[in-house]
């Protein structure tokens, strides 16, 4: 419960950022944090609540990003239509991958590898054809205006990102209070027992990955509208996949605000580290790797677990007082 309250407070604070903060740098910083928080939540749906660890979530992010970029640049579609189609594409690909992969009840590690392979295949394909920008990536033409889903004022993007995070938290809440969520978590805990209680394993997992794919694609669409540029390495490369899983693990897998906590802590620490070590390429990701190992060693339930433990200890102290 403490974790949820902390999360809600954090969200409220984050809402104030665009009004309280003047610096362009910090606005962008928190915007990215929110973005990664929602991406992490997408991963969390499948990995944290569903127990299926994807190492290639960049696949869905990239589909959203390149989907909307290609539709706008090559086919002149309106930004909103392109975005909607790209998100649908993310869902469809999620569903397809799920149907393909979950048929055989592969061990967890195999699923992780397959998702990684899919992301790599996408990366190679995208970087090989001119239609998709080949090695240079794609630039979405500047056309400021609400009609084009591009805003002069960065703060509007910020509020949109914040809303996404709220939606993500609501989705998590739904998972924790619905039949589907109960079944998904049962599948995560024990597949045999879940089957014995009438749960259709494949249908449950496929639905989860479809939802997860749609959410991750949404982040991709948002990214492109905000930055107006995407390339294959950014969209489908390991960095995005690592972000997606890392924020959830550090913040607490299978929890409502885990991805948000993880995103805040990860990037705050990353930023602090940058101040100390300078903007050396690679060092901040190495730092992420270290945080991952430390989290696994000392915080197996993430930050959310830490908050809950403190609450439990305090209440037992009160009981013995």
């Amino acid at each position, binding site marked *: 419960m403490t974790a949820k309250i902390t999360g809600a407070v954090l969200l409220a604070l984050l809402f104030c950022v665009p009004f309280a903060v003047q610096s362009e740098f910090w606005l962008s910083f928190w915007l990215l944090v929110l973005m990664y928080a929602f991406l992490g939540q997408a991963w969390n749906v499948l990995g944290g609540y569903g127990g299926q660890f994807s190492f290639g979530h960049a696949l869905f992010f990239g589909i959203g990003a390149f989907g909307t970029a290609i539709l706008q640049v090559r086919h002149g579609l309106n930004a909103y239509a392109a975005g909607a189609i790209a998100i649908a594409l993310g869902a469809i690909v999620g569903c397809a991958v799920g149907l393909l992969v979950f048929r055989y009840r592969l061990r967890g590690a195999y699923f992780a590898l397959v998702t990684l392979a899919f992301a790599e295949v996408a990366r190679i394909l995208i970087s090989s054809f001119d239609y998709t920008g080949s090695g240079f990536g794609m630039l979405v033409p500047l056309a400021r205006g609400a009609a084009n889903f591009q805003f002069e004022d960065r703060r509007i993007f910020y509020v949109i990102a914040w809303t996404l995070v709220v939606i993500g938290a609501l989705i998590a809440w739904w998972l924790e*209070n*619905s*039949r589907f969520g*109960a*079944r998904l*978590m*049962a599948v995560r*805990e*024990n597949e*045999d*027992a*879940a*089957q*014995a*209680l*009438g*749960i*259709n*394993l494949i249908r449950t997992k496929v639905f989860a990955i479809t939802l997860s794919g749609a959410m991750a694609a949404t982040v991709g669409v948002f990214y492109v509208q905000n930055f107006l540029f995407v390339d294959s390495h950014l969209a489908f490369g390991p960095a995005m996949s690592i972000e997606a899983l890392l924020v959830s693990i550090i913040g607490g897998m*299978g929890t409502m605000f885990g991805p948000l906590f993880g995103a805040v802590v990860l990037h705050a620490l990353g930023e602090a580290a940058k101040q100390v070590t300078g903007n050396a390429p690679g060092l901040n990701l190495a730092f992420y790797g270290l945080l991952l190992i430390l989290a696994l060693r000392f915080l197996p339930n993430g930050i959310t677990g830490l908050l809950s433990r403190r609450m439990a200890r305090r209440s037992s102290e009160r009981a013995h007082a």
Partner: protein
Amino acid sequence: MLEVRELSKRFGGIQAVNTASLDVYENEIVALLGPNGAGKTTLFAAIAGFVRPDSGNVRLAGRDITSLPPHVICARGLVRTFQIVQPFGALTVRENIAVGAHLHHASRRQALARAEDVAEKVGLGPRLNQPAATLTVAGRKRLELARALATDPKLLLLDEVMAGLNPMEVSEIVPVIQAIRGSGVTILLIEHVMQAVVSLAERAYVLNNGRIIASGTTAEIASDPQVIEAYLGHGAAARVQSRLEARHAP
């Protein structure tokens, strides 16, 4: 309620189940007995859809369920528990049971309420908010039972529910199972604890090396020489017989 006909299953070089046939009639409690490794759990797994039989068929309430997947069989009213308990560790006892309740209740609130009812029935009431992973063996067995019960089954397959329980725990659970039968459920149970078998089951089948070697009332089974040999070894029946005669000798 349940008809198993000529069911066989081979794993590599081992014939785990060999043309086994049995019947369980509505509202009975029937026991499936046999020494370790006889194939009882495999038979359960085959009946419940976890393992595809090589030959034979299974009918539930007259309808063929032989090659159906486990979750479909569960929806039809046949639920099994596991010999090695499989709790949903990170979920609370209430949430665990609710998963079973969700089979027939879409609403979260209803499922949770039903879970509380079932928990009371099996004696897990005080533990509703505990994470399942913190339960003792006895508690986990009850949870296993409660989860299955929450699905409103017609036929319950209980796999060694008593294993690992001390005599007091056994005597606590027996009335629970009787009450379950009293509410209209049919039960087929695998059990080693004879005290439980005798007080619960009217009839029993004995499985040895994959074959059904005896069937009948529990009293008939207990004195069947083939059964004694299956448990105690070759020649044991004769030894038991001569021992009994010696005791009754003038």
